[in-house]
């Protein structure tokens, strides 16, 4: 502790915001941290303006909004590194008023197979339901009947890639066509898009799907959408529930940063006030506060946080309050109190006492402003601690699961074995955001420390 006093005893007094900014910009680290912070500020403003919170929450927690998105798809830019042209989603819409049977063509020029193939039907009928015959035509002219499907309800989905009888039929058929032993399994998406050889390869070209519908009534109609699920989606990919991860990353930015900033701002200021009271009044107040900080040292912070958030099911903002309560008598009090003891005997404080200023006036108007500058770097540098705390609580699964945050994404990734199954993007992107936050705040804290404590520059 003595060393801290040695460094802090030159309390620098006067700074203007512009002056500090100018000094921060004179460090490379300062410029870097400000650029990153501006980036986050940009994301925050964009998110808040363009993507209302209620909408984000609804989309994040809806199970039906994402049916037509691929599962566990990698981000589009991530696909560039794979060296292959990975498939994107192909949507083919059809409507029976275009004529019957319906012929639809689309081209498939990707290097990899799609993940799933579903057909979403919308039917209007009275009496007997329509019966659809689905034909598939490959670029080489081969035509096959995939399925004869009786529509089950007004909104019906045909999961072609989960259809085991179709898979069995196609794979025995194709195995006999190849005529050589093969070392891969034939799934429906592979069967529909592969070249018939003993090496697994995509047959590129124009495909054709034909829907031949038998209506019971003249006025019946059938429309819908064929979705060929790709492996790429958006800027952050999708998760195991097909949700675009970018929703959580976008809204996680304001949520996580305000959690971190809120915690570190309030804890620093409350500690400042408590330390000033402790140092200024001395005597019994001082020793009570000192004993409290010692008890706080022994309080197991994380287990208590987990216990509280699990037993009482708090939202992230009530948890913020708990974090503050559990941290205000932290070890920061001791260093700040030491500074108060030095400031306490300065002549201007004596002058204030002489003109009859009250204790509170002295604490809030004369002591705190004086010791504020050396505390600011710590305030800035401790923001990431609380951002990571949010991630920890999310990882332990004790946070409100409906709130989209960075920690939430990490937890989902962790729970679903992303580390082991190779869904690297799922871990890397939220991690990168956490790292950027950590680095920017700690660099800024580091630079501010150098500005406020000029003695550090020598070492």
């Amino acid at each position: 502790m003595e060393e801290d006093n040695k460094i802090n005893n030159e309390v620098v007094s006067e700074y203007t915001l512009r002056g500090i900014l100018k000094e921060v910009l004179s460090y490379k680290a300062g410029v870097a941290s400000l650029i990153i912070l501006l980036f986050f500020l940009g994301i925050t403003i964009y998110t808040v303006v363009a993507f209302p919170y209620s909408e984000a929450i609804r989309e994040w927690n809806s199970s039906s909004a994402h049916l037509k998105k691929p599962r566990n798809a990698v981000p589009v830019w991530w696909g560039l590194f794979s060296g292959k042209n990975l498939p994107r989603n192909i949507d083919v819409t059809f409507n029976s008023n275009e004529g019957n049977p319906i012929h639809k063509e689309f081209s498939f020029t990707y290097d990899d197979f799609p993940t799933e193939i579903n057909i979403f039907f919308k039917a209007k009928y009275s009496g007997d339901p329509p019966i659809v015959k689905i034909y598939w035509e490959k670029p080489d002219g081969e035509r096959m009947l995939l399925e004869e499907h009786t529509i089950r309800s007004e909104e019906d989905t045909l999961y072609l890639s989960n259809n085991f009888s179709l898979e069995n039929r196609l794979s025995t058929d194709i195995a006999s066509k190849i005529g050589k032993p093969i070392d891969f399994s034939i799934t429906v998406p592979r069967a529909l898009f592969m070249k018939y050889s003993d090496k697994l390869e995509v047959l590129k070209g124009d495909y054709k799907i034909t829907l031949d519908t038998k209506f019971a009534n003249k006025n019946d109609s059938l429309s819908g959408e064929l979705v060929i699920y790709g492996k790429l989606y958006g800027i952050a990919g999708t998760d195991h529930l097909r949700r675009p991860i970018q929703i959580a990353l976008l809204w996680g930015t304001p949520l996580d940063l305000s959690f971190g900033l809120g915690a570190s701002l309030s804890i620093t200021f409350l500690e400042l006030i408590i330390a000033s009271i402790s140092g200024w009044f001395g005597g019994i107040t001082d020793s009570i506060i000192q004993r409290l900080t010692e008890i706080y040292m022994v309080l197991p912070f994380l287990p208590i946080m987990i216990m509280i958030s699990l037993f009482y099911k708090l939202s992230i903002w009530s948890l913020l309050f708990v974090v503050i309560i559990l941290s205000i008598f932290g070890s920061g009090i001791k260093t700040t109190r030491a500074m108060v003891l030095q400031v306490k005997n300065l002549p201007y404080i004596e002058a204030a006492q002489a003109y009859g200023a009250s204790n509170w006036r002295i604490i809030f108007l004369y002591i705190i402003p004086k010791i504020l500058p050396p505390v600011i770097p710590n305030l800035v540098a401790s923001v990431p601690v609380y951002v990571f705390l949010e991630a920890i609580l999310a990882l332990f699964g004790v946070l409100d699961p409906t709130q989209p945050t960075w920690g939430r994404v990490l937890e989902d990734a962790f729970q679903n074995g992303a580390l082991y199954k190779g869904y690297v993007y799922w871990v890397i992107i939220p991690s990168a955001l956490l790292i950027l936050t950590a680095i920017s705040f700690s660099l800024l804290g580091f630079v501010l420390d150098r500005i406020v404590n000029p003695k550090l520059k020598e070492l």
Partner: protein
Amino acid sequence: MKFIIKRVLTLFLTVLIAVYLTIVIANAGGYVDKIAENEIRTNIVMAMKDNPNFRNLSTEEQKRFLEDRVQHELKKRGLDMPFPIRSLYHLKNAMVLNLGRAMYMTSDSGSTLVKSIILERLPVTVLLFTTATVINFLLTLFLGLRLSRRYGSFWDKLVISLSPSSVIPGWFYGIFLIMIFYSWFHILPSGGLVDYPPPSGTISYFLSVLKHMVLPLTSWIIASLFLGIYQNRTFFLIYSTEDYVEVAKAKGLSPRQIEYRYILRPSLPPIITSFALSVISSWTGAIVTEFIFNWPGLGQTMSQAISYFDAPVIVGVTVIYAYLLTITILILDIVYAIIDPRMRIQG
């Protein structure tokens, strides 16, 4: 000795208050009361089962009889009193680690007592934590000392510029280490304590544990290495400008002697102080590191208890952590007293 006894007493008081706070917090939802009541009920049911008179009663009567006995027992132990008095009963139980029975979890030996679940996991936690702490301390101390000799060199600048990396916690590096060394290179296990099935020989068992410790230890050490070296080096630099160091140089002592006698020795107390703070806060990281690496210690017990919502285990683990923190502080106090003679004299 007097100093140590005094410290033990004050620390006992602090842990008493810390555990009391834990109980108050947990019992705001009535969880501690429920734990105590369940314990009593289980004991009574056990005793009843062997009683032939009880078995002859009808189900309805059995139930009423049981309820009577439970209420009686609660009254006898003072658990029908208002919370401030009741809480003292809970406090006493928690302090002697009488933590009740788990709702779903069992220890490996099959016991449902929270105490045995925790005591079984404790050594595993202590093993990882102590190893990491000791390696960390020695590494930052000696690398810091070496760096202070090469003040302003390339390595010095490198360590300074890498020191912000410590803002990222160890468990976070752990995620990346798992991805690199397990998922990518397949050379180290992703977690756990030993291979499955555990090797039979003592030496191969030990080696297997060692192999599983590499990644957790590395993640832990990376997180504090650069900042630790940087801080220690700064302490050494401050002390190497003292007058008595100049005198020692003038006397013609070898640089090595100067370093160990006049720089290392006086700078140890402040180094230990800052190290102590980091050790205390690293208990938080320890819980998460164990969780990430599936290390079967207290942290993992905590995460299992969360997934089962096993309230007694959660309260129990929290109490144990209060004890562990206290013991850590006591050990650091003793180390401090050994290194700084002034502490011993002042008491």
